């Protein structure tokens, strides 16, 4: 209520949404988050299955079989920009295409036959079977079908408990992490650790981002064992227990896995972020410090110096051009939102509105620390709220996903795509320049001259 009032009451608003919206410096109470969406409010959120698919999809040589009616698979066919250095099977969309009779009589038999067919045709080592909403309702025993199929074919068939209505995207991340843990398996515990060898959690190799970071690590004298899950495969994931450190980027999706791996395999983890020049440099130093090896520390400093020299001039020149512009952020998770605030400050842009679909309490607290007084912070926003606050706060650009883009454009506001189907990397030093260039290309485009105000 207060936020709405402070910001000038919108024409209409939903009472139940009040606690999900804050203006920094105006409220004592904590922002409400990690809750169910309010019916009828046109939430921008996706479902559990979506979250699980985001995390697991980049496993390149797996068959990703969606157990459910066709739509769920249809809307997720190859919509993400994860790159592969090997197999391409992950880019196919497989569905059991449940029909009315399957809903009535159950889909277990069809699922079993589907797996048989796929094994025959593609001979995969690994099949992920995703549960969609109705599977949870018609009571198919996914566990049993997968187990039987695994035994029959001698491969891994792992159920992903991602029925859409049991929560939101975050629950899907967790379901995916559980599936990954099953893949690594308890026996890996006895694997001998390799020193100077890390797993990289929470990078999906969009536009080759895992490769960029892998190259940095290599130059530092550290081996990248496997990324979760960008450009990974059944075999490489299974070796995860070998690493002596986990570095975690997208904390929202992967912190659970990191904690579990610490518990089960005794692998400590570090939170890192490779978004922006500063965060990238800081994260690389953190990794080097962890190993405490002077050679590594030295090489890391060399790398940072070289890269910063190469790129900071360009970033600086964009900063001059962009100073004083105001940004609005509406993205999936808290980690991304936090990184973006920092990246914007590197190029001289203030954030006036910031929200996420599924940010966690701790993340909102960090956000609250980072942003200026008067910035609107909101959880699980809808188009009405986004429109209202962007206009009111005079945002020049919005960062968001596919659904938010047309809204920004209709309002005459510039836009940055920060989603899983982008085609250019935003990670690392090179990514920082790409980001600055993209901001410049949209904020300073000549088209805005013609639209008046």
């Amino acid at each position: 209520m207060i936020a709405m009032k402070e910001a000038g009451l919108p024409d209409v608003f939903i009472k139940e949404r009040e606690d999900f919206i804050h203006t920094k410096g105006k409220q004592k109470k904590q922002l409400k988050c990690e809750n169910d969406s309010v019916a009828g409010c046109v939430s921008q959120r996706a479902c559990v299955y979506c979250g699980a698919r985001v995390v697991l999809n980049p496993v390149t040589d797996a068959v990703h079989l969606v157990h459910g009616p066709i739509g769920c698979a249809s809307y997720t066919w190859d919509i993400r920009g994860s790159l592969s250095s090997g197999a391409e099977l992950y880019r196919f969309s497989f569905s059991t295409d449940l029909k009315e009779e399957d809903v009535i009589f159950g889909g277990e038999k069809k699922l079993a036959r589907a797996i048989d067919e796929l094994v025959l045709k593609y001979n995969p080592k690994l099949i992920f079977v995703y549960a969609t909403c109705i599977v949870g309702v018609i009571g198919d025993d996914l566990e049993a079908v997968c187990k039987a199929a695994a035994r029959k074919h001698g491969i891994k068939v792992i159920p992903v408990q991602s029925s859409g209505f049991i929560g939101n995207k975050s629950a899907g991340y967790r379901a995916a992490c559980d599936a990954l843990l099953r893949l690594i398996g308890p026996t890996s515990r006895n694997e001998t650790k390799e020193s100077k060898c890390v797993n990289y959690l929470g990078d999906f190799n969009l536009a080759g981002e895992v490769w960029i970071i892998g190259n940095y690590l290599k130059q530092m004298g550290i081996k990248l064992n496997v990324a979760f899950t960008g450009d990974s495969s059944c075999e490489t994931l299974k070796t995860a227990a070998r690493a002596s450190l986990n570095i975690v980027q997208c904390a929202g999706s992967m912190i659970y896995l990191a904690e579990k791996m610490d518990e089960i395999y005794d692998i400590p983890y570090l939170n890192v972020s490779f978004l922006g020049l500063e965060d990238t440099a800081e994260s690389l130093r953190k990794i080097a410090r962890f190993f405490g090896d002077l050679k590594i520390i030295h090489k890391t400093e060399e790398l940072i110096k070289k890269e910063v020299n190469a790129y900071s001039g360009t970033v600086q020149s964009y900063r001059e051009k962009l100073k004083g512009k105001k940004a609005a952020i509406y993205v999936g998770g808290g980690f991304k939102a936090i990184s973006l605030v920092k990246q914007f400050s590197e190029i001289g842009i203030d954030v006036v509105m910031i929200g996420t679909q599924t940010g966690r309490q701790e993340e909102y607290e960090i956000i609250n620390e980072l942003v200026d007084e008067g910035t609107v912070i909101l959880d699980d926003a809808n188009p009405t709220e986004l429109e209202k606050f962007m206009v009111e706060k005079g945002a020049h650009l919005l960062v968001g996903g596919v659904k938010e883009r047309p809204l920004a454009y209709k309002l005459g506001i510039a836009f940055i795509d920060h989603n899983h189907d982008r085609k250019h990397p935003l990670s690392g030093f090179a990514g920082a320049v790409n980001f600055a260039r993209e901001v410049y290309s949209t904020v300073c485009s000549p088209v805005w001259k013609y639209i008046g105000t």
Partner: protein
Amino acid sequence: MDKETENCRNVNENPCNMCMPMGAILPFKGVEQSMVIIHGSQGCSTYMRRHIAEHFNEPIDVASSSLNEKGTIYGGEASLIKGLDNLIKLYNPGLVGVLTTCLAETIGEDVERITSKYLKERELGDFPLVTVSTPGYGGAHTDGYFLAVKRMVARLAKKTEKHSRINVIVPNLSPADIREIKRILHMFKVEFTLCPDFSDTLDRPFERPYKKIPGGGTKLSDIAEMPGAAATIQMGITVDDDISPGRYLEAEFGVPLYNLPVPMGIENTDLFIDVLKQLSGNKVPESLERERGRLLDCMIDSHKYNFQGRSVIFGEPENVYAIFKTCMENGVYPVVVATGSKPGKMIELLNNELNNYRGEVHFLNETDFAQIRKKSIRMNANIAIGHSDGRYLTEREGIPLVRHGFPIHDRVGGQRLLSVGYVGTTMFLDRITNTLLENKYNSYRNSMYQKYYKKLKVAGQQLQG
């Protein structure tokens, strides 16, 4: 010629269709001041919004009753009611479509009962809440589209006095196509009610201030008067009678139905023009005659290039039939004709067209891209015509794709593609011809070199040796 039905397989590999509620959203977007709520879990509606927004590049606001675990187990009535309350408050719509998902249908939600109770309790009188039962597993998006139009018409139609307007019912065409159909209707000076009309709502000009529900769309009062129309022209020749809005108006109110194909290609457009001539009593305007003449000129200019085409056509049955006809007229002979949906009357219509045809054509119903790919290779297809998911044929098999239909999400301008009428057909044909030409120019130097020069060289060496 042979045809295959693939609906007994166990895996759908790379789907060629979407689900029923997604198709049902579209016509609601073409009615003035209308909004949609989908009864089910949040994810479905978000995916559909994303899918539609990417094609039209327009904000697509669709509400969800956001069913959670509790609602799923104990019934979702409370969620739906709350959803309707909030939606109506936020958007103040003039009509609300209430669609269902697989989940709502599976747990047996009685949406009809919930909504009539809702109207009574909120004292909303006869506010148009239009319920459409659209379980995703019950049909493809095409079925959802026509069923939604039918339900909307059935809900709003009133017994009215006869008037001279005609009803025009259009399938899932591009906004540009709908504008072209309206232009032709205006040329004949006929008054009409076109439904659904998303030519403005899903392709709106940049304007300020931003409106949450875009202006435009078929007027509710006009839909109410559809029963009094002189006739209905429905571009839905493949559509099954039980979901056909035109059939409904004919059966319930005796409105004569002209069930036509989409006016694409010379013959199909002629059919449309003939009906307009007949209904309006007006002559074909001269400017339209000239448009027809230009199409003929284009067909002749390009016929030899077009003859090189071996086409694979896929998408919604109504569009597939229209493309098929256009290809047949121009010698871009189809070798694979496919739809992910149930074909309705499409197969019968195609068979009629092929009575005297001796080439080999394969029909695939309720199919997926794995099948389409397999057949396309076997049949040596060299051009694909259909929506963006066919890009997979280009990537894997090098078959170039002429984008047409819905969705087009890897290129811009799907909403602006014009393909109907004489003018639209001309533009469509140019896209086809130019794609064939581009492919030819890209490869002919090399292929001739490989085919003849290599041989020449070998022969030369043999002579020397």
